[in-house]
């Protein structure tokens, strides 16, 4: 079985103080969210760079119905269980990057503070043939003030629209990068994530200087 006899190097701290700085054992986790509509390649993106094959967890998400078939104020908010694929990349022994692929259903705006709290940023994966699928994610990250990057997934090396058209359709700020990537290739996903990290670094610098 997976019993571990606690090797000496991993001195497990006994103080269960929240937020106690520990130099010893567990890696510091950081996370990036990979968001987008159904079938745009979120799991492919996660799997392309993760060192484990993506795992799935189920969690609650709060939904606010918007738009055409809004059933009225009495049922404006519901929770639903979503399945989320995730993976990880060990940066070094003290730092681990998690990637959470989360769906954004169209016609729903979702709110999920658990997911965003402490996140470095988000990669919004877009399929140009169904571009409106990503609107809820863009809305949410804008409101949450989370750095995000729009990544147009080019399944066949083809882009239905050019990146300026995508930017226009999404009506995002000029400082939000819109890029093209291929979710199947590790190097391509890595480069897209590096752009997310650049945005995160900008935010961290701004927070420090203010």
């Amino acid at each position, binding site marked *: 079985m997976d019993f571990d006899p*606690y090797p000496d190097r991993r001195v497990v701290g006994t103080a269960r103080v929240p937020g106690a700085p520990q130099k010893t054992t567990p890696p510091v*986790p950081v*996370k990036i969210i990979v968001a987008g509509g159904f079938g745009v390649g979120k799991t492919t993106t996660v799997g392309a760079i993760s060192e484990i094959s993506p795992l799935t967890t189920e969690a609650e998400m709060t939904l606010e119905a918007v738009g055409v078939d809004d059933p009225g104020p009495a049922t404006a908010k519901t929770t639903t269980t979503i399945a989320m694929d995730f993976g990880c990349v060990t*940066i*070094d022994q003290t730092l681990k990057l998690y990637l959470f692929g989360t769906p954004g259903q169209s016609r729903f705006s979702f709110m999920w503070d658990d997911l965003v709290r402490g996140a*470095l940023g988000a990669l919004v994966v877009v399929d140009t043939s169904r571009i409106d699928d990503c609107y809820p994610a863009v809305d949410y990250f804008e409101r949450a003030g989370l750095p995000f990057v729009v990544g147009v997934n080019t399944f066949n090396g083809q882009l239905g629209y050019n990146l300026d058209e995508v930017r226009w359709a999404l009506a995002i700020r000029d400082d939000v990068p819109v890029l093209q990537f291929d979710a199947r290739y590790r190097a391509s996903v890595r480069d897209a994530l*590096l752009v997310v990290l650049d945005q995160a670094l900008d935010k961290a610098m701004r927070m420090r200087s203010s």
Partner: protein
Amino acid sequence: MTNPAEPDEPDRPAAPAVRPFLRTPGSGPAYAPASAPEPAPAVPPGEQPASLRPFVITSGRVAGQDAGIGLETQVSALPGATGARLSPEQRAIVQLCGEPLSVAEISARLRLHFGVARILVGDLRAAGHLDVHVLENDFPDPETIMRVIRGLRSIS
């Protein structure tokens, strides 16, 4: 009269749950009925146990006392934490966390709803079985981000 070839309807409702490959012997005692807090109300015998309503395991609680526990929060077992009075789910969590593990991974590997896993982890922490490494700062500092950038760049 529709499908005479089907003897005893083997199609399960197949709860839209965690992937089935995770159900390996040794890692899935999560739903052993040993000391379920309540006799799970009306689970038909043929139904997949994964469709048991998830928060039965937490005695109906849907919110833990540890709001700081997130998906990526690292959890590790404390030495000598193999208590006998743990529920099967709790014991499975403690066994899994010999190496530090995120709550999301605990949830995935034990096929527990994330909300359930989070409550159980909080309980085990309160009982002194687990070390839960909640981070205090909300947004990572620039140095940490630089390390992630360097680490990713080295991936080819």
